[in-house]
């Protein structure tokens, strides 16, 4: 959509927001329907297909043995990557990750890293030499807005359901044996994205809304109530709006954490 049609829709969505309404009939603080299917990919150690409204994101977790970083010889390595493949949107182009996919991957990574969701100390096979590398790969399949939340929910679900084989040292050689255990996941960081239209805040903006937002912020909470990552993605906020966004996000993050724990618990049985 472009030109006049776009302008009209912008006006329409803004007018709705003033009346606390949204184009798809949701309340301002209402999430879209969220469906998460863990273990979608059998070749991945962990995976989850996420549908958030019409947005579809597939996340895979792969494990590999490798060297630790020089400054953290006693920890495993976490690498998060996002591909906005052109299948997912007419706006996405083939090529190396652009700023949007880099921001997406880095923000999801920060939530997991800073909350210490993965106990990286338990991923060491031989200190200073060999550790498990956890690759989180985010593959966006259909973009209808709020890719960050959908990707993060996929990532934590894939981590919670991932299986790690045992690596043992046998006469100085490292062998991977066919004994599987869950990854050492100790926290469940949950981001919630808040958009601003005029002076209204709303959560989980869809693509039509994203196109007319004045500002957007993502806030990640862990279960103890700590904030572990924030990213203002665009626009500007007042101090009061930031506080309001935090409180909106905090509430919603709890409900979504419960949903994800429910799903992943089910997956284990």
């Amino acid at each position, binding site marked *: 959509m472009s030109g006049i049609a776009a302008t009209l829709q912008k006006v329409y969505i803004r007018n709705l927001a003033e009346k606390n309404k949204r184009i798809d009939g949701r309340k301002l603080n209402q999430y879209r329907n969220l469906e998460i299917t863990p273990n979608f*990919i059998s*070749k991945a150690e962990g995976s989850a297909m996420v549908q958030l409204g*019409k947005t579809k994101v597939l996340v895979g977790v792969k494990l590999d043995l490798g060297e630790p970083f020089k400054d953290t010889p006693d920890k495993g390595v976490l690498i998060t990557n996002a591909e906005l493949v*052109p*299948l*997912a949107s007419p706006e996405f182009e083939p090529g190396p990750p652009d700023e949007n996919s880099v921001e997406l991957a880095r923000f999801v990574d920060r939530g997991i890293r800073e909350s210490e969701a993965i106990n990286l100390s338990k991923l060491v096979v031989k200190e200073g030499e060999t550790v498990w590398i956890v*690759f989180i790969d985010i*593959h966006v399949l259909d973009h209808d807005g709020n890719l960050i939340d959908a990707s993060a929910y996929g990532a934590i679900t894939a981590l919670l359901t991932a299986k790690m084989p045992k690596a043992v040292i046998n006469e100085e050689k490292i062998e991977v044996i066919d004994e599987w255990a869950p990854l050492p996941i100790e926290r469940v960081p949950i981001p919630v994205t808040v958009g601003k239209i005029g002076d209204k805040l709303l959560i989980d903006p869809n693509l039509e809304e994203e196109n007319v937002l004045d500002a957007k912020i993502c806030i990640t909470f862990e279960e103890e109530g700590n904030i572990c990552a924030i990213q203002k993605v665009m626009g500007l906020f007042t101090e009061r709006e930031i506080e309001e966004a935090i409180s909106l996000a905090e509430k919603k993050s709890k409900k979504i954490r419960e949903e994800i724990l429910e799903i992943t618990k089910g997956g284990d049985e």
Partner: protein
Amino acid sequence: MNEEMSYMLEKKPEKLFRDDGKRLSGRDLFELRPIKMKVGILENADGSAFIEWGKNKIIVAVYGPREIHPKHMAIPTQARLRCRYNMAAFSTSERKKPGPDRRSIELSKVIREALVPALLLEKFPKTVIDVFIEVLESEGGTRVASITAASLALADSGLPMKDLVTAVAAGKIDGKIVLDLDSAEDMYGEADLPIAIMPRRKEITLIQMDGKMTPQELRLALGKAIEACQQIYEMQKRALLERYKI
């Protein structure tokens, strides 16, 4: 080089047939793996399809005909068909580094060449039609599954087509001609022969081979593959009907 090999490091089995004459997967010589197809599964794309073929999971989107950038890529007399075959990082046993490699560059080309004959590109001069293929999970035979799904996505997009394109691989393992090789059979077998046809007139739009076959074996394999395509063609048509059924 030898990129396919590096995806799979399991040990070579002693033989590829069981004592009862069936293949290790329990299949008969000319038995296909289970195939599921779903058309119209994406919102943004003009056409889309999802295929599960054994453990292969592949999603295809079609965009276009649309404007081409940069403009000097436009062909005055017809649409340009672009194809991009891409494997997700988690689709293979060992994590695949994102981005195109030589194998995916070649596959993108052969898949495009398999689809072109079915399209009426001259109806949309100066535009581009993009076929984006994402392999979400792979287990041998992704190119034929991709072609089969891509022709559904093209049909779903409403583009006029001469026929669907239907593909399957034949091959040779432990000296016998079989259909629809899985990863292990592809890796440890003697030959792989992926083919695609337009089933209505049995015209062949893809044929590749690696391995060793006598011309006689090739003839047998080709014939069996063409037969199997008819079976897959029926599934394609059902998947399309499913899409438009109320």
